[in-house]
């Protein structure tokens, strides 16, 4: 377990969809206990990149290493088994189902011998309550439907689920984009907590402030390519913003509006 070997590393990742070039040479790495922010405007290839990391898409070419070993995922299940958990923007949560049922969805612990094999829901309820408690959400009734939780709470449940099931790398797809201020800080705080546990986090966002609040390093994508990767000490928040939006244009608009963007 060498700390220097990245949990995930991709080099020159290329992905074509027919004649469309979605990714044309992206490089990225995540280490233990590190939050790497993936920034980029719409259409930069963020979604394609994370879906490739999550096993949804297969790369056209390029290297994909998990803990130093080359991997090839056939399905999201393979990625999960390799310890890469993705929390999608649409959450992969089912509003009509209870918190417990959502928490253990697809990975229900069973007990008993075959014809009588059943899910140990008492255990599940206890685990759910405890895991929620750890992140500061007090679920009094784990049977309540996920639809009754706030957006931030749902996001935290989704992250807690990934962490509980042994994720080594957490990919968060715009977890704060639909949230209010208080809920955003709840999620950012939790991301920080996850980092302290030694997990690697890939945090996708197009909000530079959210990124700067928790990120250790920033990788900026533009038109399917990496513009560069910067440590927090190397770059100021304004520079990052300009880099992400393609620089000059935004600066011009900003001046026009009196520096408000």
């Amino acid at each position, binding site marked *: 377990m060498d700390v220097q070997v990245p949990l995930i590393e991709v080099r020159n990742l290329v992905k074509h969809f027919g004649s469309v070039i979605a990714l044309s040479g992206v490089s990225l790495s995540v280490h233990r206990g590190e939050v790497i922010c993936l920034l980029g405007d719409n259409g930069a290839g963020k979604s394609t990149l994370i879906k490739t990391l999550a096993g949804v898409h297969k790369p056209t070419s390029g290297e994909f290493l998990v803990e130093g070993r080359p991997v090839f995922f056939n399905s999201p299940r393979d990625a999960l088994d390799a310890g890469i958990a993705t929390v999608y923007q649409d959450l992969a949560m089912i*509003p009509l189902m209870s918190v417990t049922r959502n928490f253990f969805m*697809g990975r229900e612990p069973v007990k008993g011998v075959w014809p009588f094999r059943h899910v140990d829901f008492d255990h599940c309820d206890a685990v759910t309550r405890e895991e929620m408690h750890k992140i500061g959400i007090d679920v009094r009734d784990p049977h309540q439907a996920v*639809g009754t939780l706030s957006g931030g709470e749902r996001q935290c449940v989704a992250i807690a689920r990934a962490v509980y099931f042994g994720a080594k790398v957490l990919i968060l797809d715009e977890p704060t984009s639909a949230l209010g201020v208080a809920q955003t800080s709840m999620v950012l705080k939790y991301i920080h907590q996850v980092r302290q546990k030694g997990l690697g986090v890939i945090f996708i966002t197009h909000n530079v402030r959210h990124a700067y609040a928790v990120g250790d390093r920033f990788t900026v994508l533009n038109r399917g390519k990496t513009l560069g990767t910067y440590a927090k000490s190397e770059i100021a928040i304004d520079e990052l913003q300009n880099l992400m939006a393609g620089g000059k244009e935004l600066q011009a608009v900003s001046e026009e509006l009196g520096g408000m963007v």
Partner: protein
Amino acid sequence: MVNTTQPTADLTTAPAVKQIQDERLKEVSLLTKIMRRPELGALAGLILVTIFFLSTADSSMFSLAGVMNILSPAAQLGILAIAAALLMIGGEFDLSIGSMVAFTGLVFGSFITLTGWPLLLAIAATFVVAAVLGGLNGQIVIRTRLPSFIVTLAFLFILRGLSLVGLKWATGGSTQMRGIGAAANEDWVREIFSGNALEGLFAWLAANDLIAKFPNGTPTVTGVPVSILWFIGFALLATWVLLRTRAGNWIFAAGGDANAARNSGVPVDRVKTGLFMLTACAAALVAILTVLDAGSTDARRGFQKEFEAIIAAVIGGCLLTGGYGSAIGAFFGAIIFGMVSIGLTYTRFDSDWFQVFLGAMLLLAVLFNNFIRRKVTGER
């Protein structure tokens, strides 16, 4: 604006935040817990209907014989309704259930009369045919991504037509196939699929004056029709699977949001195909039970049962959009059905009111379910 040390500092204040949320969440009352049960509407409906008939119908309706009269049609419908409910929770419809009853009835009758197979083999083979057809339904829905509504509507007509053509072919021109009862051998297998059960118990109850009996000492009701036991057994099994097993959680997940379920590692396609096979097998079970009891089968068997089954499932709390519902609710829904269809003959009302009642009940159930869902799941 951006304070990078803030998260660490905030960790210590987390308990304070929790206290506030604590108070807001304490409102989970007993009422909410009861309302969260999807079968609540069906149970309330059953109680209302029972009260209605207790006050208007002849008292013989609720005698032991009367209850058996109600439960027999309820059982046949209920077996279909419970399977339909599981499929609806899984997010799909099967409109071919009724035609499937006719078709598997023909298949079963043919195995008995034309091939002369023993009963056990004929029953097993019928279930295999049903499972294959159900699996075909499921695979078409999954692979084409067409709505199951339209795919199974096609099968409603295909199977009904095949039943007619097949019956004429097998019988030489008739749409009814007779002599199945006589051709089927009498053994323990037949005891399981036809006639009455628990006859010893009923004889004992009669001997001890616990139930009504004829002057010669035999009970007026000699036993429970086996279809009722199948109905109850299936309801219990389906409820257990749905609420206590991994497969049950997958059914809810597949119907709630297939994409989210897939992303979480639920084998959605397998679950759905399995459910289509289950509804087809439930139709085959009803076909076998009714064909053995009647001794014959005909092309109209199971006519419009698909609608009745779906109505019973909806009355039982299933949402048309999937992901929510209960098997025990469909059980109650089917009993409401049986009670009203049989019960009206015990009253002074014209029994043709049945259909009016049916439509009204469906509408009420849908409105009620929607209201409850919004209330309970916090959907706004």
